[in-house]
């Protein structure tokens, strides 16, 4: 498990085991935000940034604080606190330094704290026993994969507005079916690398 090159993990996280389409993480914001392409870009980039940074911080916190002190059982609490605090911090920093980025990205930051993909990636990296570089690659790749999926989805939903969808299926229903077809397509990548 430990011998995998970070590049392989990066590729795997984007394509073969896309965090959204094979692990179902971050579905809630995926379904509600993907109605709008511009918002999808914003949220996608915010997720890439936060996910990369929080996997790194959580990795350090787990192996340098929790393991030596024997407090591994509290990892859920610690991870969620770190994510919430980090998002808050980023929001404050962006607000003070760059109003342009704040207008485009800032509104998505509160959404990210409750995005299960962020916590999910941190949990996966500990369960799979990645080292530091692998974890960062996994976090970054997971973010890119998530952004890719939501932007593609927003594009498709834009087109589908002109189609006739049965009334009970509108909104979430049709979005899930599209996600299923996208997941089909991503399964096509799965023969390329054998990484969980």
């Amino acid at each position: 498990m430990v011998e995998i090159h970070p590049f392989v993990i990066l590729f795997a996280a984007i394509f073969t085991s896309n965090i959204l389409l094979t692990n179902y993480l971050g579905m809630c914001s995926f379904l509600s935000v993907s109605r709008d392409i511009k918002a999808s870009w914003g949220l996608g980039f915010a997720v890439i940034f936060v996910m990369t940074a929080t996997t790194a911080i959580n990795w350090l916190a787990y192996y340098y604080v929790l393991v030596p002190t024997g407090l591994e059982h509290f990892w859920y609490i610690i991870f969620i606190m770190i994510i919430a605090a980090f998002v808050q911090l980023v929001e404050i920093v962006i607000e003070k330094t760059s109003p342009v980025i704040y207008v485009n990205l800032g509104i998505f930051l509160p959404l990210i704290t409750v995005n299960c993909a962020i916590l999910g990636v941190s949990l996966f990296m500990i369960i799979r026993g990645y080292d530091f570089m692998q974890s960062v690659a996994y976090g970054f790749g997971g973010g890119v994969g998530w952004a890719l999926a939501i932007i593609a989805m927003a594009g498709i939903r834009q087109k589908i507005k002109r189609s006739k969808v049965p009334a009970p299926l509108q909104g979430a229903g049709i979005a899930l079916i599209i996600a299923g077809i996208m997941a089909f397509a991503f399964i096509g990548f799965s023969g390329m690398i054998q990484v969980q």
Partner: protein
Amino acid sequence: MAQAKVKKIFYNAFWKDNPVFRQILGICSTLAVTNLIINTVIMDLGVIFVVMMSSFTVSVLRNLTPHRIRMMVQVLIIAAYVIMVDLILKAYVPDISRALGPYVGLIITNCIIMGRCEAFAGSNRPLPALVDGLATGLGYSVILLAIAIPREILGFGTLLHGTAWQVSLLPDSFTKWTIMVMAPGAFFMLATVIWIVRALTDQGQEDEAHG
């Protein structure tokens, strides 16, 4: 607390505001754990416990919690119960605990629980909050089972695969739909369930919440 009121809370949380098909909340774990019935049942029990207890606790503490930091307090309460569930599963059903992997931990970010704490428990007395939590958890469980049962039958041809009570439903000549236990099957099944329920109840309007 009057009998009628309990019924009303129960009905609202179980059916009218059902977390999965009405509010589109908690989708992540809905999709991830429904490939085997036994995983689903264990996950359901965990979610019911967490949502009940955290609703109750949030309600007990509602007058002591400063308004500004209430989200943080709620997350902490939820996380504490999730850790309990995680430890219990690791101790008594280690195989299933491994199969569920991070999804037990992800109960914390399951928006259903946060949503109930915020929408109901934060402004009601502890006992109604407990009932509300129970009903929400049951409403979630029923949908999960409705997705898990067809997925397992079509994907493995069995019921309760991997347990002592395994029943083979379909003959060996049946070609298993492997796709049903993989990711796309989950998406299609959930979409189908939402479709059926909405068509039956004829209230196409949804209010998609964030989270």
